[in-house]
C-alpha cells in the first residue's frame, strides 16, 4: 500500500512522523506534494525519506490512500486539478476542517462514478503517536476502507468512526485542543516562574502534570470531578487554587473556546461549499508553480470559476 499527501505542511509532517515511528508504513512508499518547496516541513519530510514532488498529479499516481492535507479553501482547486487522475483504487481522505464529504464527492463525481471519499479530523499529537482522530465514511467507501484508515490512524493515537455531523464539534475539542493545552502550559510555567522556578523546569513539570493527569483520567473509571476531589485535601493548597480558577470563570472559558472553534469550523464549511471560488484565494506565485507542473494546463479549469465552466 502506498500513501500520498497533497500538501506537505504541518499535518502531513506530523502524520508521516507518527506513521514511521509506528512502523506502519515504510517512508519510501510515501509521496508528498507541494508547489512550495521552501516550507520547513518539506525538508523535514525529505529527511525522513519521503518522496517529495511539486506535482500533485505525481502524488496521486503514486498512492493508493491519498490524504488531502491542504487548507480548506485550497481543497476545491486541488480536486479540480487531480480529479482526472483519480482511479478506482484511490481512497481520498480529506483532513480539511469544515470541508464536507458531499462537497468533495460532488467535485469528484465529475470525473468518476464512485469516488471513495472519507473525511477525518485528527490533531497534531499524531507526531508523538498520541493523536485523537475521528473519521466519517463517504457514500462509495466500503467498510474495509474505514478499517484501513482506522488501522493507519490508530497507529498514531486514538481513532474512531463518527457520524459526519459531529466532526465540527470534534474539531472544536480535540482538533484545537492541543492549542488550548499549550496555552495553559505556557501560563502554568509562568506561574511557576513567578513563584521562583527556573523556566525549563517549570515547563517540564507543568507538561508532566497535565500528561499525568490525562493518563490518570484515561485509565480510570472515575469522573474527572472525583479525581479532582482526590487531589484536594481539606483547607489545602489545591482547593484554594481551584477557587481562584472558578472565580476566573475557568470552566466557562473552556466551554466557550470549544464552542467558538466549532462555530468557526461551520463557518469555514459554508465558505468552502461555495461554488464560486475567487482565484485571488490562492497565491499567484503558488498558482504559477502549479501551472508549471507536467500535465497541468489552463484548460484544467483551475482558475476559471468552476460553476461557470459547467454552463
Amino acid at each position, binding site marked *: 500500500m502506498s500513501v500520498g499527501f497533497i500538501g506537505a505542511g504541518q499535518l502531513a509532517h506530523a502524520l508521516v512522523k507518527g506513521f514511521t515511528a509506528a512502523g506502519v508504513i515504510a517512508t519510501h512508499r510515501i509521496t508528498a506534494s507541494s508547489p512550495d518547496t521552501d516550507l520547513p516541513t518539506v525538508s523535514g519530510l525529505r529527511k525522513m525519506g519521503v518522496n517529495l514532488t511539486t506535482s500533485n498529479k505525481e502524488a496521486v499516481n503514486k498512492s493508493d490512500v491519498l490524504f488531502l492535507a491542504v487548507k480548506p479553501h485550497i481543497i476545491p482547486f486541488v480536486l479540480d486539478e487531480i480529479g482526472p487522475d483519480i482511479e478506482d483504487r484511490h481512497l481520498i481522505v480529506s483532513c480539511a476542517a469544515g470541508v464536507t464529504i458531499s462537497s468533495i464527492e460532488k467535485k469528484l463525481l465529475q470525473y468518476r462514478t464512485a469516488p471513495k471519499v472519507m473525511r477525518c479530523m485528527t490533531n497534531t499529537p499524531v507526531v508523538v503517536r498520541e493523536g485523537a482522530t475521528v473519521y466519517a465514511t463517504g457514500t462509495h467507501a466500503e467498510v474495509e476502507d474505514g478499517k484501513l484508515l482506522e488501522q493507519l490512524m490508530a497507529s498514531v493515537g486514538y481513532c474512531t468512526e463518527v457520524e459526519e455531523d459531529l466532526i465540527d464539534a470534534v474539531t472544536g475539542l480535540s482538533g484545537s485542543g492541543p492549542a488550548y493545552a499549550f496555552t495553559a502550559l505556557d501560563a502554568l510555567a509562568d506561574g511557576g516562574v513567578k513563584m521562583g522556578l527556573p523556566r525549563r523546569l517549570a515547563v517540564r513539570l507543568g507538561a508532566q502534570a497535565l500528561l499525568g493527569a490525562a493518563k490518570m483520567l484515561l485509565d480510570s473509571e*472515575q*469522573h*474527572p*470531578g*472525583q479525581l479532582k*476531589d482526590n487531589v484536594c485535601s481539606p483547607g489545602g493548597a489545591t482547593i484554594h487554587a481551584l*477557587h481562584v480558577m*472558578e*472565580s*476566573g*470563570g475557568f*470552566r*466557562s472559558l473552556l*466551554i*466557550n473556546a470549544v*464552542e467558538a472553534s466549532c462555530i468557526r469550523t461551520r463557518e469555514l464549511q459554508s465558505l468552502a461549499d461555495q461554488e464560486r471560488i475567487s482565484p485571488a484565494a490562492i497565491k499567484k506565485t503558488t498558482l504559477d508553480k502549479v501551472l508549471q507542473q507536467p500535465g497541468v494546463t489552463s484548460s484544467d479549469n483551475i482558475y476559471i470559476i468552476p460553476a461557470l465552466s459547467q454552463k
Partner: protein
Amino acid sequence: MDSGDVTQLKIGFIGAGNMAFGIAKGILSWKVPAGNLKVSAPSDTNLQRFQEVGVAVTHSNVEAVCGSDVVFVAVKPHLVPVVLSEVFGSVTKDQMIVSVAAGVTLATLEELLPEASVAVRLMPNLPCVVQEGALLFSLGSKAKREHSVLLRSLLQGCGLVEEGPEAWIDVHTGSSGSGVAFVYLFAEALAEGSVKMGMPSALAHSLAAQTVLGAGRLLRDSGKHPAQLRSEVCTPGGTTIYGLHTLERGGVRAATISAVESATDRARELGLKSATAKRN
C-alpha cells in the same frame, strides 16, 4: 449509661424552640417513649406542640435537668450563661450536656458547667424539623467514646449525624447551616426562571421544590459523585448542557464557594466575639 439502648434514656430540653422540637421529634421517631422526654420553657407558647406529642413540660429548667441522662441546651446563645448558672447545682458528671447554641464554644460551656461535666457541642440545621437534618457534633474534654456512640444513636432519627473536631463546626454552620438558605435562594431563582418562561408562579414553586428534593435524594442515595450525576443528566447538545454553560458563565460555583467561606468566617468571628464577651 449503656451506650446501646437509647429507649431507656431520660432526655431533658432547656428551651422549646424549633430546634428543640425538631430534635425531640427525631428522638421520638426512634422508639424512645415520649414520657422519657421533658422540656422546659418560661412561657406556655412553645410548650403546646410538645404536649401534643406526649412530652412532659415544665417551666423549671432545674426540673428538666434533674433525672435526665442527656440534656439539650437549646436556648439563644446569649441566654446560655444565664440558664447554665441556674442549673449549675443540678448537673452531675453522669449526664451529657449537649448545647446547640451557635457560636458557643466547648471551652465556654465547660467554664459554665461543674468541673467534671460532659459537654458536647452540636450544630444541627433547620431540616431537623422534618427529620432530614445534617448534624455535626464535637465532644468536650470529659467526653468518652461511649458518649459519642450514644449521641449518634440517639439522634439518628434527626437525619445525618457525624462527629468532628470543634474546628469543623464553624464550617458546618457555614455550609449546612446557612447552606439551607443558599438552597432556598436557588429554588426561588429556579421558580423565577420558570415564571419568566411562562409558567404560573405557584406551579413553578412547587416544581422547583420537588426538583431540589428529588435531586437531593438521588445524590444522597446513589452514592455517586455530584459531577457524575450532573454528567448523566447532560445529553449531548441538549437543554441541560446549554443551561449549565450559562450557569458557569455566571460564576455560580465560585460564588457558592465564596458563600460558604463568608458564612464560615462569620461563624468563627461570632465564636470569638462570644468567648471574649464572656471573659469581660
